[in-house]
């Protein structure tokens, strides 16, 4: 094709030469002089170049050629005005980069399908309780769901916990999931080595078996292919490894080992919500059908169960697993995406204004091109090309920035953000960046092309290149843009302000405990039923605590089953009763549970006396545990202030006895001996919950966090404690943190929002300020002559200043008014994410408005000052 075209063009040149030669000959024949004849021939032929070009166009992809031409020209223009190009490209890079980075998180967490076969067919099943909240599923309820529903190909329950694991290269604290048969089938996963659990593995008393994750196999089992040789000791029990799961498969999150759930035996209670449930929909079954199915079963259970009460399910619900995993993160991430979108708008507005100023500088050039016959379409295309070039440059730079910024973003992200490991700059994210850049380019191109090639163009030439013609109208457009920028920025900064104030309010909350100088140590012993084994655990912890107290710098040591701000405590219903009322059999509890006046509801926490001292939880009345509360003396409980207030209003709870054995299997009554202060166990922004504390030495518990109040630094305490643990139980692994870290992590998601939205807000503020400055400075410089005339006619500098500032202020106030209105409408939607401030918090609105007006006024003041310095003599000679 190309060759043919080249030949045709060469022939054409020859042909034209021949043509002109012939015409010249004709002219000579008519009596002209040779020179005259030649020129006449050429005149008659027309512009040779033009003819050649038109002919070439016949053969070429004309659009493409002109496109290249436009691009070359655009590059030349951008190179010529380097300052403009740099500012525009960097502004776009910042905005597109930030948007791409946030989108990559949104994509990785919310949009990207889960990495399982037909992952959209995998559902989570929940119980819905009387207050409408969703909870996990009790064993008998799961059995009914499994046996009676017709919607699932396979359905399985699972439950993850941290366990001490030894037998591999080193002891570890590993997340272990107990799963029912069919679990892998639901997720569509098969072992890459070995086998799935078989029917034989599920039976109680079978030789315990375990599946391991690919990562665990690589790291701790040396990628051994001979699985028969490997055994793991998990919470004291010996397991043979039967299979290795594929790389990347870690469901539920962070799990490295999977055991058959049936080893634990069934809990017959319909109100012990111990298991999460997943199911794979049958082909052709919709989510709605599955919901009707499960809901019907759940309601039947509700209607027929003997365990009536708040903890019994009222309904059931089926939601896609992906939604169940990411549900909590959704609103926060979409909020961030919205915020960064606003930043993008502000940035685009800035670039639009830059282009506008640039266009009026180039007015004369364009007027000339237009006069020389450039079609309007061609000029429009030129503008589009330049906008595309700017946006693509900015976009590429932005994507590079996003690569770099994403690491920081992920590091900053709260720990509880699910699926963070699937966040990356991948193909869909790059496509997004490209589409985004293209959209930005199209928007900017359309805007500037419409502005620049409108009817005012030709006047540019008439005005002798002073470019005054379209000044007024482009100034007006510029001001509209700036007002819009101010409005959007105000919304963003108000949002940042509200989230910032929320975080401050959260930090002001008195948590009810001390945070500093506490080193925590997570350990776990296996769950045991046998009273003798339990006594052994109590002795182990007692020894451990005594030894830890001797670490230099450690002042006090406590232990708890649930550190505040670290995942929460189990809750349940307790019974108010006395020693004589204890029924002989479990069935005897049934009638008691029907007596509402006996029931109470609280979190269940196992702790030691030292725990209250280390955390500084104040004793309100009575006493906390002491050395006399031995395993065989009456079991005691300490309750929180809010429980005392709610359950025993106008009464003294001390001395009452309660039955709370449903939490740990020990039916001995607990005598309330003291009341302690409330703690914000579930987060500073969540209200304290009524809590019952029992004594670790009377009611041992497997998974324990030791708390050490220490003046020494964490590392030395941790290494000393590790040595002690090694000494007492070499198979036990521990995890060390400071309580400050736990505290800080609990604020992670708020901090993430504040930092990001704050960053977007500040960036938008800077951009908007720059926008105001740009428009005002430009306006002043274009009006130099007019101002000079005014000064020459006797205008005082103060008057000039007022005139310019007044003009700026009008724009600013319009922007602020729109911004406040928009904020009032938009912040309501984030009310649920705020804490301690209303969505219309006057202080935030007022402060932000002042800040914005101040910054914008300053941006006006500098050019206005310059205007007052205009020397009329110089100004009138201007241009």
């Amino acid at each position, binding site marked *: 094709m190309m060759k043919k075209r080249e030949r045709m063009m060469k022939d*054409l040149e020859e*042909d034209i030469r021949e*043509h002109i030669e012939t015409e010249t000959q004709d002219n000579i024949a008519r009596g002209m002089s040779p020179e005259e004849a030649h020129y006449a021939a050429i005149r008659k032929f027309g512009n040779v170049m033009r003819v050649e070009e038109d002919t070439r166009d016949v053969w070429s992809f004309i659009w493409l050629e002109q496109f290249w031409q436009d691009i070359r020209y655009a590059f030349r223009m951008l190179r010529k005005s380097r300052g403009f190009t740099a500012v525009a490209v960097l502004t776009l890079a910042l905005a597109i980069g930030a948007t791409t980075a946030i989108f990559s998180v949104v994509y990785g967490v919310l949009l990207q399908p889960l990495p399982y076969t037909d992952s959209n067919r995998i559902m989570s099943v929940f119980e819905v309780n009387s207050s409408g909240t969703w909870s996990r599923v009790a064993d008998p309820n799961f059995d009914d769901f499994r046996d009676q529903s017709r919607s699932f190909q396979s359905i399985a329950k699972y439950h993850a916990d941290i366990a001490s694991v030894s037998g591999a290269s080193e002891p570890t604290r590993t997340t272990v999931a107990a799963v029912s048969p069919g679990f892998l089938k639901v997720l569509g996963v098969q072992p890459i080595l070995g086998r799935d659990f078989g029917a034989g593995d599920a039976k109680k008393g079978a030789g315990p078996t375990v599946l391991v994750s690919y990562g665990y196999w690589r790291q701790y089992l040396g990628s051994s292919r001979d699985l028969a040789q490997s055994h793991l000791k998990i919470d004291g029990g010996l397991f043979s490894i039967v299979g290795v799961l594929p790389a990347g498969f870690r469901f539920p999150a962070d799990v490295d080992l999977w055991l058959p759930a049936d080893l634990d035996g069934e809990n017959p209670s319909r109100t012990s919500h111990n298991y999460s449930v997943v199911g794979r929909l049958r082909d052709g079954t919709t989510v709605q059908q599955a919901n009707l199915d499960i809901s019907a079963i759940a309601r039947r259970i509700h209607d027929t169960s003997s365990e009536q009460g708040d903890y019994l399910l009222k309904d059931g619900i089926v939601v896609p697993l992906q939604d169940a995993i990411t549900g909590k993160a959704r609103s926060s991430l979409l909020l961030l995406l919205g915020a960064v979108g606003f930043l993008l708008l502000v940035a685009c507005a800035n670039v639009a204004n830059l282009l506008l100023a640039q266009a009026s500088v180039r007015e004369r050039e364009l007027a000339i091109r237009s006069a020389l016959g450039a079609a309007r379409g061609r000029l429009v295309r030129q503008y589009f090309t330049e906008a595309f070039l700017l946006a693509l440059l900015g976009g590429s730079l932005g994507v590079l920035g996003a690569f770099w910024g994403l690491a920081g973003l992920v590091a900053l992200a709260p720990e509880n953000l699910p699926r963070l490991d699937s966040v990356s700059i991948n193909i869909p994210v790059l496509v997004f960046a490209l589409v985004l850049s293209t959209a930005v380019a199209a928007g900017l191109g359309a805007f500037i092309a419409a502005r620049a090639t409108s009817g005012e163009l030709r006047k540019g030439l008439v005005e002798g290149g002073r470019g005054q013609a379209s000044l007024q109208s482009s100034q007006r457009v510029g001001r509209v843009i700036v007002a819009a920028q101010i409005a959007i920025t105000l919304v963003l900064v108000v949002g940042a302000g509200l989230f910032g104030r929320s975080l401050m309010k959260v930090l002001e909350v008195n948590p009810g405990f001390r945070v500093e100088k506490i080193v925590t140590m997570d350990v776990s012993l296996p769950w045991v039923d046998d009273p003798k084994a339990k006594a052994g655990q109590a002795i182990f912890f007692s020894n451990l605590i005594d030894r830890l107290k001797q670490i230099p710098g450690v002042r006090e040591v406590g232990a708890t089953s649930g550190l505040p701000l670290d995942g929460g405590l189990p809750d349940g219903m307790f019974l108010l009763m006395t020693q004589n009322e204890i029924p002989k059999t479990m069935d005897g509890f049934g009638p008691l549970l029907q007596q509402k006046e006996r029931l109470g509801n609280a979190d269940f926490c196992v702790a030691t006396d030292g725990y209250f001292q280390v955390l500084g939880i104040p004793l309100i009345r009575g006493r906390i545990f002491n050395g006399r509360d031995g395993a065989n003396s009456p079991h005691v409980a300490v309750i929180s202030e809010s429980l005392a207030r709610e359950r025993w209003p106008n009464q003294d709870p001390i001395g009452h006895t309660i039955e709370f054995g449903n939490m740990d299997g020990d039916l001995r009554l607990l005598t309330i001996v003291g009341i302690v202060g409330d703690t914000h166990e579930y987060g500073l922004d969540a209200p304290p919950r009524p809590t019952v504390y029992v004594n670790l030495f009377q009611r041992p518990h497997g998974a324990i966090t030791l708390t050490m109040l220490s003046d020494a630094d964490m590392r030395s305490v941790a290494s000393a404690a590790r040595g002690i643990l090694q000494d007492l139980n070499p198979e036990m692994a521990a995890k060390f943190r400071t309580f400050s870290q736990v505290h800080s992590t609990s604020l992670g998601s708020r901090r993430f929002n504040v930092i990001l939205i704050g960053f977007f807000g500040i960036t938008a503020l800077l951009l908007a300020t720059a926008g105001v400055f740009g428009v005002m400075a430009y306006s002043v410089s274009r009006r130099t002559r007019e101002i000079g005339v005014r000064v020459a006619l006797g205008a005082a500098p103060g008057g000039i200043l007022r005139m310019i500032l007044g003009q700026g202020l009008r724009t600013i106030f319009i922007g602020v008014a729109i911004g406040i209105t928009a904020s009032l409408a938009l912040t309501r939607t984030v009310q649920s994410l705020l804490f301690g401030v209303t969505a219309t918090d006057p202080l935030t609105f007022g402060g932000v408005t002042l800040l914005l007006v101040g910054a914008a006024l300053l941006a006006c003041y500098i050019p206005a000052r310059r205007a007052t310095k205009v020397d009329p003599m110089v100004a009138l000679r201007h241009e």
Partner: protein
Amino acid sequence: MSTKEQRERIELLQGTLDLLILRTLLRGPVHGHAIAKAIEFNSDDVLQVEQGSLYPALHRLIKRKWISVEEGTSENNRRAKFYKLTAEGRRQLAAETSKWDKMAGAIARILRPAEQEGE
């Protein structure tokens, strides 16, 4: 050159140049300059071809395969390109001509309805 003469010359309607070229080539292969001359001569110098514009038109017709080009020698014994009607070009010419006749007739009827009625 008087202004009158200029006014009497008519610029070619868009697309008609192609038709005229095809018609000119009906008599046999001709080179570029001769085509321009022929059009001017045959229209009694009323139709003014800006000679250059002939070439993009010729190439357009080549691209559509209505004409072909071959080497030859011009009347003053120079090497020149001769343009030749193809079979397809011949068919096209017939079609275009009848279309043109129809259109010209129609335009004439619109422009002079009164005369026709009056006669």
